[in-house]
Every structure is written in C-alpha cells, then in structure tokens.
C-alpha cells in the first residue's frame, strides 16, 4: 500500500492514540504518540503492519522535554515513532518485550541522556567508561565539560 493509504489505515486503527502524523517526504512517516501508549502501539505495528525491524532509537534534548524517536522500517516504507518525555520525570517503558533487539539502543539512551527505562532487562552502562562520574549525561544540552589539560612532552604546554 502507498504511504497515504497507510496513514489513513493507521488513523482509523489507532484512533486517539495518534497525536500527530506527518509525511514530509516519500517513505518517511513520522507518527507521534503519548509515552504511555508506546508499547501498545509498537505491538500493534509489529503484528498488523509488519514493522518488525527497528533500525535505532534516537534521543533529542529539546530543553524542557526529551524526544525519543523509534525508527522502524519495512521493504515498503519507513515509520518513525515519536514520543515526548518531560525532563523532570524522565521515565518511559521498555519495548524489549515486543522487539528484543532494542536492548542496546535503550541502554545507550540511559547512558547519554539519563532517561530511566522501566522494565529494561539489562541496565548496565553501554558506552561510557567504568570510571565515569554518575549523574553526568553527555548528550544533554546543558552539560558542558572542561577540556582536559594536555601536556606536550619536552615542550611548552
């Protein structure tokens, strides 16, 4: 089915779970839902529409809110599922019961943004070093770091 038909079907199927749906370019659907409906919508997309392949999960820091985007795709089209989480209470449910391959992406979100993903099977840090001080989330916009002082051996520093 074409992208436009898919949009109509999704609107009819998911009803009021759809906060916003857009098609800015061919094969790029952007569907926004509320965070509490994420697992339900993901399950429905996987079972009825064949969106089994998750490319990655992106996080964006928008100031007061975090935006998480799940990038799904099938051979016919790509669907980007979006949800907004308030920074003051950054909790979201894990979708690993639906898509087991999402585990590494969720761990990365926890590391980089400080999101708390409820129900994640393995909450260890993924990419940050062992001696990283807790509470520092590098990809938040308000996180700055001091550049380490470099020593030039045998020269002026």
């Amino acid at each position, binding site marked *: 089915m074409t992208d436009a038909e898919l949009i109509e079907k999704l609107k009819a199927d998911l009803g009021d779970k759809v906060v916003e749906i857009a098609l800015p370019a061919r094969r*790029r659907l952007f569907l926004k839902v509320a965070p509490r409906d994420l697992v339900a919508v993901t399950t429905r997309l996987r079972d009825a529409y064949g969106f089994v*392949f998750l*490319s990655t999960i992106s996080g964006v820091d928008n100031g007061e809110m975090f935006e998480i985007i799940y990038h799904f795709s099938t*051979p016919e089209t790509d669907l980007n599922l979006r949800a907004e989480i308030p920074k003051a209470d950054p909790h979201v449910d894990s979708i690993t019961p639906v898509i*087991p*391959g999402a585990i590494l992406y969720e761990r990365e979100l926890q590391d980089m943004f400080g999101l708390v993903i409820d129900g994640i099977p393995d909450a260890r840090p993924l*990419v940050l070093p062992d001696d990283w001080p807790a509470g520092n989330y590098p990809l938040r916009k308000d996180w700055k770091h001091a550049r380490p002082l470099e020593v030039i051996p045998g020269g002026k520093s």
Partner: protein
Amino acid sequence: MSFQIPIGPQHPALKEPISLRMTVEGEVITDVDIRLGYNHRGVEKLAEEKTWIQNIYLVERICGICSHSHSTCYVQGVENLMELTPPKRGMYIRYLVSELERIHSHLLWLGVAGHEAGFDSFFMYTWRDREVVMDLLEMISGNRVHYAINTIGGVRRDLDAGQIAKIREGLVVLRKRSEYYFHIGANEPSFVGRIAGVGILPKEKVIALCAVGPTARASGWARDIRKEDPYAVYDEVDFEVATADSCDVLGRVVVRVKELLESYKICEQLLDKLPPGDIAVKAPRKAKPGEVVSRYEAPRGENIHYIKSNGTDKPERLKVRAPTLANYPATVEMLRKGFIADIPLIFAAIDPCICCAERSVTLVSAASGDESVVRMSELRRRAIARHHNAPPKRNAVWPF
C-alpha cells in the same frame, strides 16, 4: 563446571579494542557479555559544535574501512535538509566510489576470515588484490582511506577519460582474480569444512534481534537498502540482492562473494552510463529547520543517520547508528552453544567494525566464577589444532 575467560582490549585477533566476557562450561559457551566503550569518542557531541561542512570530515572518521558510507549517509541527509539536488554526474561518481569501497571492504573481510580459519595464503592473496582497489581509489580521490570526495551538493573531484580507462582495467583484473576465489571452495574442502556449521543464527532470531547486512542475509532475510529505499542512482542500475540459506559462517562468505560480483557489475554500469555535466551545486551555509532520516547500505549492513537542524550553520542533533552495533545481540546469540575455539571465527564473521565498538574475550566459568584471560591468538591456535584433530565434515558443500 564453568569458567570465565576475558579476552582483553588488546589482542591480535581483531584489530580494535572490545571486551567480551564469556561464561563457559568446558568448551561450550553458555553466555556472553559485551563491554563496549573503549572506542567511544563522543562524536555525536562533537558534531554539535562544528559546521555542516566540518562535520563531513568528522563523520568520515567514525570508521576507517567504511568511511565513505558514513560520509555519504550524512551528506545525503544534509542535502535533503537544504533541499539541494546534486547533478547526475556528481551522484554517479559518489556511488562509484561507494561500490569500490564495498569491493575493498569485502576483500578485506575475506582475508580476515581466511586468517581466522587458518588459511593465511588466502589472506595474503585477497589483500594483494585489495591493493588494486586502493590504487584506483587513490587515483580518484588522493588518499587510500578517508577519501573526502563528498561535499554538500556533490563531489569534489571529477573523473577524466584516462582515469575511467584505468578503472575499467582494474575491474577486469579484479574480476578474474575473484573468480579464482569462487573456485577455491571446490578445491579446499578443509576450508569449507572449517566454516560450515559454525555460528548458526536462525531466521526468527535475525528478525527478533534486528540484525543487518550480510549477517542477516546469510539466514535468508533478504533486506538490502539499495533495493528498498533506492537513493539516487540505484534504481537506474541492475543488480540482485545476495542471500544464502545456510545461516552460518559459510553462508556469510557466500553472500559477500556474491556481493563482490554484483559490485563489479554495478561499477561497470555506472561507468557506461556516466553523464556529462557539473559535479556539484553550491550549498548554503545554513540549513532550514527540520529533521531527516538518512539510510545507506554500508558493506556491513544498514547505516542510519538522524539529523536535526535548527536553522543555524551547526546541526542541532546528529545521531549515528553504525551497522555493527545492530549485529551485537545477534552475535551474543550466535556465540551461545558455540565452542570457545570458534570465537574468533564467529566474531570475524559479522565483519565487526568496532570503531563504528572493542575486543577482548573474557570467558567466565559459570560454576566457580573463576576468570582467566585467553589471548585471541591462543584461541585461534586452539581452534586450528582442534580442527586438525576432528574428523572432517564431509557434507559441507561449496555452492559455486
């Protein structure tokens, strides 16, 4: 009784630092734990402080082997954001370099697979042939790796008739040599026997764990971004998606060898159809606010970049997911129930590009919790010795 074996960040088997801790019972692995982070360079944060053009060079250096794929994926996305359409000639040159990069990467991988299986002559042969491709790339772009041929709006260097003739000659030589490799399997039953049945990954696991690239295609999951989401010139050339059904390392070798053949075909078609004209359009300094998802089929699988712009000359957010990261859960799955001796081979079979992640293997004994460090070279020696002593697998068939 189980055992824990760590293989440290520095070891000779795979050239990048990564840490795997494996829980072992006897010779069979029961669980694997991957520790990434030795190669974490903070590229996404750095990208927010550099302009659109400076980011091309930063993104290119995410990986040395697939540098053009990251650069092209990024530039495709930014061109969408800025609503630019590069001229046809520029696109053809860009994707010609992409296919040459795919050829060099697959030849590199064939050599590494041969080395891990104990077949060092094969390693030397394929890397000698790789030098043909490196010379072509150096002639086109000026550098053997990190070609920096992309710019926003097209490419930076043009091809003239002499260069095109040389590329054609190089492709003829490579094709002849690659066809020799296809018949190696028929003459080397020990090589085929070594890699058959190792690292099994059934198709349902591929789907559940979202594996990408030749690792997934070797289990019959025929997804290739060049066919599904044809960006630019891929809908104007004729090629097939390579798959295999055996779900093991032999299948992955077969898929990559088939992809080599397809790449030669694509390169020749691109050279035949190369249109005249400009190679780039001028790009504005600032991009309009918006977001874009850009996907590309790198030699290792699907490369996806998500770029968001806020109207200035620096990106608001750049998210990169390199293909090897997507194959990690699948690797854990493949290593379970495998033998310790097969670790280097299975790990090499996903064509890991850890810089896109790090490598040491820790084998953890499940019963006693003891840890012991085993070097990858030790594992490889054990693997080769074990294979010499085991009865040969007579039922493995080379499909060519």
